[in-house]
C-alpha cells in the first residue's frame, strides 16, 4: 500500500481503486511502525471506500486495529447519501472520561491517600459480576437512557453545573429508549453505576506540568500538585448489546456481500434502520453519561467523608471516546451537517463552537486523554485547526501494542503494585491478572501520542497529570 509523507506528522494513503477519499494518518515516524504492523491502515482504507464519506478517513496518533473501522478512527458521512455504522462507533458506546478538579494539593491528601482510595474502592462497584447499588426497574432504566446524566442529577447525583460541563450536556436528545432490545435493558439494569473491568479505571491524580496557563486557568487548574480525579468507563453490557444487536439487524436487512470486512456493516443514515441505530446508540450514550455522573458523585462523597469537604470539586469536563453524532463542519467552504463517527477518538473543538460550555468558549473544549495504568494522563484543548483537518477530533489514549496474553507472560500484577508503590502510587484492583494485562509496558507511549496531537495541531497540550492512587476494575 502506498503511503505518502505529507509532513512530519501527517501521512496519506492516496485515493486509489474503490477509495472515495484518501486516508490521512496523524502520527510520527516512531509510531508509524506500530500501525504498519497491524491492520490499521488496511482498515482505514476500507473506511475510505464507504458511501458518502467526506474529505478523508482519518487515523489518530494512538490508532490500532479494530473491527471494521480502526480504533482511533474518525470518519464523517454526508447526511443524504452517507451511512452510519455500529463498527464505526465500537462496542463500548460512549466509553469516555470524566475529570474532576479539587482545591486540594498533594500535601493535603498525602497522609490520607490510602484511605481515600480504599473508600472509593468500596463505594464504586467494579469488576465483573459486581452489580450497581440498586436494582432498577425497567421503567427507571428506560428513563436513565432517555435523560442520561440529567436523570442522575435529578436523583441527587451531582449538580446542574456538571451537566453544563459534559459533552452534549450529558444527554443525547435523539435517544429513544423504546428502541433498546430487552436483552440490552436486562444487561443494563444491574450495571448502572459500575466501573466495569478491562481498561477502565478511576485515578486520583496530581498535576505535574502546566503548559498553557490560560487554558489551564479556564479549566480550573492552577498549580502543580493540585489534585484531580479521572473516571474512565462506558456503557457496560447495555452498550455492548446495542452494538451486537444492530450489527445483526443490519446484516439481516442489507446482507454481508461485498464488504471487505463483516464488521463494516452499515445502514444509510436516512434509512429507518439507520435512524433506529442512531436513536438506540444515543440511549446507550446516555446510560454511560449517567454512569459516570453517579460515580463522580460517590467520589465527591468520599472526599467529603475523608477530608472534611468536597468544595471546589467541580467537573472540568466529560468526553465521549466512542460515538456517532450529527455535527456541522466546514467542507469546501460551506457549513454542512455530517454524521461523524469517532471510534477511539475525542472531539476537539476550538474556541467559539456553540457546543462548548460558555465558560470554555473563549479557549476551546477540554480534551481528556488518559494514559495507561499508572502512567501520565493529559489535558489538552481543542483547536480550530482540528476542525479544519480532522473534523474536530484528536487521540483518546495510549493504544495497546502488546497482547494481554503476552502482558501476562511478562508482567506480574503483584510486582506492578510494588513498583508503583515505590513511585508513590497506590493501586487497588479486583484482579491481579487484570493489573498485569493493563501494564503500561503493553501500551504505546502516551507522551508521544500527545506530542503528535500537539504538533499536528489537532489538540494542544494544557497540562500533564500523574496518578497517586489507581483503582482498576
Amino acid at each position, binding site marked *: 500500500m502506498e503511503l505518502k509523507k505529507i509532513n512530519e506528522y501527517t501521512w496519506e494513503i492516496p485515493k486509489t481503486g474503490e477509495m472515495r477519499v484518501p486516508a490521512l494518518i496523524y502520527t510520527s515516524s516512531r509510531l508509524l511502525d506500530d500501525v504498519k504492523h497491524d491492520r490499521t491502515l488496511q482498515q482505514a482504507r476500507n473506511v475510505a471506500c464507504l458511501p458518502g464519506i467526506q474529505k478523508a478517513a482519518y487515523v489518530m496518533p494512538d490508532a490500532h486495529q479494530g*473491527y471494521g473501522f480502526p480504533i482511533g478512527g474518525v470518519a464523517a458521512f454526508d447526511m443524504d447519501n452517507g451511512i452510519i455504522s455500529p463498527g464505526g462507533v465500537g462496542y463500548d458506546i460512549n466509553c469516555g472520561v470524566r475529570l474532576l478538579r479539587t482545591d486540594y494539593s498533594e500535601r493535603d491528601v498525602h497522609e490520607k491517600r490510602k484511605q481515600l482510595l480504599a473508600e472509593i474502592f468500596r463505594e464504586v462497584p467494579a469488576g465483573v459480576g459486581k452489580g450497581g447499588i440498586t436494582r432498577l426497574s425497567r421503567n427507571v432504566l428506560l428513563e436513565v437512557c432517555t435523560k442520561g446524566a440529567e436523570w442522575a442529577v435529578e436523583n441527587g447525583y451531582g449538580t446542574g453545573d456538571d451537566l453544563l460541563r459534559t459533552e452534549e450536556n450529558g444527554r443525547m436528545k435523539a435517544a429513544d429508549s423504546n428502541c433498546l432490545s430487552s436483552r440490552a435493558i436486562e*444487561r443494563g439494569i444491574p450495571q448502572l453505576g459500575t466501573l466495569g473491568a478491562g481498561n477502565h479505571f478511576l485515578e486520583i491524580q496530581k498535576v505535574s506540568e502546566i503548559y498553557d496557563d490560560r487554558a489551564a486557568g479556564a479549566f480550573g487548574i492552577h498549580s502543580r500538585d493540585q489534585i484531580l480525579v479521572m473516571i474512565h468507563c462506558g456503557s457496560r*453490557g447495555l452498550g455492548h448489546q446495542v452494538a*451486537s444487536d444492530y450489527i445483526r439487524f443490519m446484516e439481516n436487512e442489507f446482507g454481508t456481500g461485498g464488504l471487505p470486512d463483516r464488521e463494516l456493516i452499515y445502514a444509510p443514515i436516512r434509512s429507518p434502520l439507520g435512524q433506529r441505530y442512531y436513536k438506540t446508540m444515543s440511549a446507550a450514550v446516555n446510560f454511560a453519561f449517567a454512569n459516570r455522573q453517579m460515580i463522580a458523585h460517590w467520589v465527591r462523597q468520599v472526599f467529603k467523608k475523608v477530608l472534611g469537604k468536597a468544595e471546589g470539586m467541580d467537573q472540568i469536563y466529560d468526553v465521549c471516546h466512542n460515538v456517532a453524532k450529527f455535527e456541522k463542519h466546514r467542507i469546501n467552504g460551506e457549513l454542512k451537517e455530517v454524521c461523524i463517527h469517532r471510534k477511539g477518538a475525542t472531539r476537539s473543538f476550538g474556541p467559539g463552537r456553540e457546543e462548548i460550555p460558555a465558560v470554555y468558549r473563549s479557549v476551546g473544549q477540554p480534551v481528556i486523554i488518559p494514559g495507561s495504568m499508572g502512567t501520565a494522563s493529559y489535558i489538552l484543548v481543542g483547536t480550530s485547526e482540528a476542525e479544519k483537518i480532522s473534523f474536530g477530533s484528536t487521540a483518546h489514549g495510549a493504544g495497546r501494542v502488546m497482547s494481554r496474553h503476552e502482558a501476562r507472560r511478562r508482567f506480574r500484577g503483584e510486582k506492578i503494585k510494588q513498583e508503583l508503590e515505590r513511585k508513590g502510587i497506590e493501586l487497588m484492583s479486583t*484482579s491481579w491478572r487484570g493489573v498485569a494485562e493493563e501494564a503500561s509496558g503493553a501500551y504505546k507511549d502516551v507522551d508521544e501520542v500527545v506530542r503528535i496531537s500537539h504538533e499536528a495541531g489537532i489538540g494542544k497540550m494544557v497540562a500533564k497529570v500523574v496518578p497517586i492512587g489507581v483503582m482498576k476494575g
Partner: protein
Amino acid sequence: MEKYRFLEHTADAKFQAYGATLEEAFAHAALATVTLMWDWKKIENKIERKVDVEGKDLKQLLASFLEEILYLLDSKNFLTGVAEKISVKQAGNRYMLKALFKGDIFSDKYKIYGEVKAITYNEMKIEDRNGFMVQVVVDL
C-alpha cells in the same frame, strides 16, 4: 484432542476451538470464551439454562450462541460452566441452535478475572477439514 487454543492478538483475544462435529466445536468455543473470564472447571454445574438462538448463517449463529454467555452473566449473574446438548438445524436460510448451559450464580466462592465485552466477526472462521475448527476474536 485439544479443545481450544489461544492465538496472539494485540488488543483483544483470538482463539480456535476444535471438535469432531460442528456442535462439539461450538461447545469448545463456549469454553474458550468463558476461560477469558473465569475457570470453567471450577464452576459447580448445578443450574441449567436453555439456549435457543438463530442466525442467517453459521457465523451469525456462532456469534449469537457465544453472546448468550455474556447476556446470562450480565443480566442473571450466571457463570456458564459447560455447554451441552447442542443441536444445530437448518431450515431454509435460517440456522437454529439449541443448547443447555450448566453453571452457577456468581458468589464469592468464584473468581472472575476478566471481562469479555462482545463477540466479533473479525477473522471469524468456521471450517470443516476432517473435524471442525471455529476461530473467534472477542472484544475485551
